[in-house]
């Protein structure tokens, strides 16, 4: 198979780690097998995505959501994945909520700072730092706006 320059495979290190975790101690994995598993994983993502997408299209939605992915798993006969996936999703959502609250807290703090009058030079420095944080949090903030609306 031709190797694409953009490498649509998942990071090798991650694949290796997962395989090691799955297999009993001391089992070796040939390089070929590892590469094959990596490719299989990519195909799995594509297959799952296209399957989930057909559910979304049926519901006349343009955005793939969690429900679509779960339905795709069932369709692909990977129902065994459903319980651990549900658990993982719960934990993930809680984590996300925590992050959102943390960045909301930051925003509130920022507003407080801007309200009070400080040394202009200090403010400028703070502003610079905040701008950097803003860029990092841009994604989260985008989501926040959706929630508020």
């Amino acid at each position, binding site marked *: 198979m031709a190797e694409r320059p953009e490498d649509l495979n998942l990071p090798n290190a991650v694949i290796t780690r*997962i395989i090691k975790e799955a297999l009993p101690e001391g089992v070796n994995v040939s390089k070929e097998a590892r590469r094959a598993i990596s490719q299989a994983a990519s195909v799995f993502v594509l297959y799952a995505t296209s399957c989930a997408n057909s559910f979304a299209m049926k519901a006349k939605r343009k955005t793939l959501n969690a429900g679509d992915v779960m339905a795709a798993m069932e369709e692909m006969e990977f129902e065994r994945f459903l319980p651990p996936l549900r658990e993982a999703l719960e934990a993930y959502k809680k984590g996300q909520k925590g992050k959102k609250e943390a960045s909301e807290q930051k925003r509130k703090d920022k507003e407080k700072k801007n309200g009070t009058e400080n040394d202009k030079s200090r403010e400028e420095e703070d502003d610079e730092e905040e701008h950097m944080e803003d860029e990092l949090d841009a994604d989260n903030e985008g989501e926040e706006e959706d929630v508020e609306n």
Partner: protein
Amino acid sequence: MSRVKLIMKSSPDVSCINQDALFLTTKATELFVQHLALSSYNKGSGKQKNTLSYSDLADAAEETETFQFLTDILPKKILARDYLKSLEEMEEVDDN
């Protein structure tokens, strides 16, 4: 997770992907890799050699229903002469 996003976006017809959906797909892929590795190992002869080899995976792809979608990318390796033999056999059938 960003690599998974990349692969998902390469799929035609897909416009937007919800963050939760991305997470689930990533997690599902992890589970899949584990499942594939373990099943292939248990099924295959690799157990005796204590090594998971490519043929274990190809066997699993062919024999396990849920892995059927992998048969195209995990073809079994056959010796060239066996392949030529089967080609000849097919031609004979056509002739008849």
